[in-house]
C-alpha cells in the first residue's frame, strides 16, 4: 500500500492510482466467466450490450460525452454564439429571443454554453493523448531497457511528481501567456510523468510473462515486441487513465481560463464564462449556472467512463 500513498500526493486527485476495493477483486476471482467464447468473436451489438449491462450511469455518461463531442465539432455554433449586443447588456433568462438571457456583452448564454463544448473537449483530449504518448514512449523504454535508462527516467519522474502540478501550471502558463494551446502544452508536459509511471509499472508486471519470453526467443525486434505484444496487454489500463486524465485536464484547463490566464476574453469557454459571471450573479445568474453545470456534468461523465474502464481492466487482469 505504500505505493498508493506515494502516488496520491499531487494535484490530480483521481482514483487512477488510488486504493482498490478488494471486493471487486475477490468477486471476480470466484465468479466464472459468463461466456467461454472469446469476446472478440461475438457480433458488435452483443459486445456493446454486454459491456453496458447493469450500468445505466455508464450509458448516460457515454451519451453525454458523445453529444458534447458532436456539438463541439459543429463550427456554426461558434460564430453564432460570439455575436455581441453591447447595448442590450446582461438581461435575465426568459427575455425574448434569449432563453437563458445574455451576458455582460449581450451574448446569448445558451449559445455561448453550447459553443464552449469545443474547448472543453479539444484541449483535454489533446492533453490526454499527448501525455499518454509521452508516457508510452518513456514508460516502455524504461521498463524494457532497465539499467541506468530506467534509473534516470524513474528519478526524473519521481521528482516531477513531487512538484505541485496545478500551482506550477498557473504560474508557468500565466507568465508565458501564449493562449489556450500553450496551456494545453504545459499540462501535457506536467501530466506526462503520471503516465510514464503508470505505463512503466504496467509493462514491468508483464515483462516476465511466458508469451514475452516466447517473443524474445523468436528474436523479434524490441519495437515490434513492445508495440504488438506488450501494448495490447496494458491497453485497458492506458484507456482508463486517459479518460481520468481528460476529466482532470478539463478541470485544470478551465481553472486557468477562470483565472483569466491563457484564453482570450472573447472566446467561448466555460471557465472564461464563469469568470465573467462573477459580476453578473445579480443581473443574470444563468451566466454562472449554465457553464458551471456544464463543466460539472462533462467532467463527471469522463470520470465515470474512466472508472468503469478501470473496473473492467481489473477484471480482465485475471
Amino acid at each position, binding site marked *: 500500500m505504500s505505493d498508493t500513498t506515494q502516488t496520491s500526493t499531487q494535484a490530480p486527485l483521481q482514483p487512477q492510482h488510488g486504493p482498490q476495493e478488494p471486493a471487486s477483486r475477490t468477486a471476480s476471482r470466484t465468479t466464472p466467466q459468463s461466456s467461454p467464447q472469446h469476446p472478440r468473436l461475438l457480433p458488435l451489438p452483443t459486445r456493446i450490450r454486454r459491456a453496458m449491462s447493469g450500468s445505466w450511469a455508464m450509458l448516460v455518461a457515454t451519451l453525454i460525452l458523445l453529444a458534447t463531442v458532436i456539438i463541439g465539432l459543429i463550427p456554426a455554433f461558434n460564430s453564432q454564439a460570439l455575436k455581441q449586443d453591447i447595448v442590450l447588456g446582461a438581461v435575465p433568462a426568459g427575455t425574448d429571443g434569449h432563453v437563458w438571457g445574455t451576458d455582460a456583452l449581450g451574448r446569448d448564454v445558451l449559445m455561448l454554453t453550447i459553443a464552449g463544448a469545443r474547448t472543453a473537449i479539444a484541449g483535454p483530449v489533446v492533453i490526454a493523448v499527448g501525455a499518454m504518448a509521452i508516457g508510452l514512449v518513456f514508460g516502455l523504454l524504461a521498463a524494457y531497457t532497465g539499467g541506468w535508462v530506467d534509473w534516470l527516467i524513474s528519478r526524473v519522474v519521481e521528482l516531477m511528481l513531487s512538484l505541485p502540478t496545478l500551482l*506550477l501550471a498557473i504560474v508557468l502558463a500565466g507568465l508565458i501567456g501564449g493562449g489556450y494551446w500553450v496551456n494545453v502544452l504545459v499540462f501535457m508536459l506536467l501530466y506526462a510523468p503520471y503516465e510514464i509511471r503508470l505505463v512503466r509499472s504496467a509493462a514491468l508486471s508483464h515483462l516476465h510473462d511466458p508469451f514475452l519470453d516466447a517473443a524474445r526467443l523468436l528474436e523479434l525486434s524490441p519495437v515490434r515486441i513492445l508495440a504488438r505484444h506488450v501494448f495490447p496487454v496494458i491497453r485497458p489500463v492506458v484507456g482508463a487513465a486517459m479518460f481520468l486524465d481528460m476529466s482532470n485536464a478539463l478541470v485544470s484547463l478551465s481553472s486557468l481560463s477562470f483565472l483569466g490566464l491563457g484564453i482570450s476574453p472573447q472566446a467561448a469557454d466555460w471557465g472564461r464564462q464563469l469568470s465573467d459571471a462573477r459580476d453578473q450573479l445579480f443581473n443574470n445568474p444563468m451566466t454562472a449556472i449554465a457553464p458551471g453545470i456544464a463543466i460539472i456534468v462533462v467532467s463527471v461523465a469522463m470520470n465515470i467512463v474512466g472508472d468503469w474502464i478501470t473496473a473492467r481492466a481489473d477484471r480482465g487482469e485475471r
Partner: protein
Amino acid sequence: MKVAKFIGRRLLNLVILLFVLSLVTFGLLYLTNSDPARTLAGAKKVSAAQLAEIRHQYHLDEPLWKQYAIWLGNAIHGDFGTSIRTQLPVAQMIGQRAWVTLTLALMAIAIALLIGLPLGVVAAKRHGTWRDGLITALAVVGVSAPSFSVGLLLLYVFAVKLGWFPVYGLGDGSFADAVPHLLLPAITLAVGLFAAVIKVSRASLLEQVESDYTLFAQSRGVSRGTITRWQLRNAALPIMTSSGLLIASLISGTVVVETTFSLGGLGTLLQESVTFKDIPVVQAVTLLLATVICVTTAIIDALYTLVDPRLRPSGGHRGSADAPASKEGEA
C-alpha cells in the same frame, strides 16, 4: 540504523526537490522576456541608463549562476525584493495576506474531515447498499467538479438567493468578521477534499470490514461498537496520512477559490501578480506555497512509513519508494 538511513535518504530527496523548485522559480524571471531588466522595470517607459541601473541593482550583470546564488541567499532570508506593481516589499505583502489563506485552508480541511470521515465509514460499513452507492456517487461528483463552478453555484444559492452568507470579500478586516466571510469559500474548497477523504476512508475501512478478524469477532458475538472501534484503529493510519497528503490540492485550490470569492489572500495575490507579470511577487508566493506543499508532504510520507510497523524499513529492502509497484497497487 536502518531508520537513520531511511530518514537521510528522504531528507536528501527533499533537498534535491527544493533545489529544483528554486531553480524553476528563479527561471521565471527569464520566462516572460529575454531581457529581465525590462520585466523588472514594469510597464513604465525607461531609458537605457535606467535599465542599466536596474541591471546593476538586481545583479543582472553578473553571470547566471551568481545571480541565482544571490537571489537564493536573499530568498532564504525572506527578502524577495520589491513588488513591481505596488512598490512595497514583497515580504510585507505576503505577511499581510498569509493569515487569510491559512485560515481558509484550516477551515476547509476541518470541514472536509468532519463530513468526509463519517460518510466514508458509513459507506464502508454498509457497502453494497443504496447508501454506499449514494455516497460513492457523491464522492465521484465532488472529485470531478471544479471548485470555481461549485463556488459560484453555492454563492448564487446561499448568498444571492437565500442571503445566508455575505457575497464577496472579507468584511471589515477584523478576524471575527472574516470567519463568516470565509465559511462559504471553505465549504467550496472542502467539496473536492471531502470527496477524496470519502474515497480513502471507505477503501481502507472496507479492507478491515472484510478481514478475517472482523469475521471472527462477529462470530464470537463481540459487540458491533467494539468491532467498529478495532476497525477504525486499523484503518486510521492510512486515512490520516492520505488526508495529510491532500495539502497539495488544498493549497493549489486556495488560488482558485480565493479568486472566486474575491478574498485578499495569497491565492489572489498570486493570480493578480501572474496577470500583471509582477515577477518578484510571483516568485515569492510560488516558492512559499510550493515549499509548504513539498515539506509537509515529505514529512507525512516519511512518518507514515515510520509509524506503521508493517512498512518500517528493514534489511534487504530498498526504500519503499523504489519498490516496484505490484499489480494491485497500480492500474
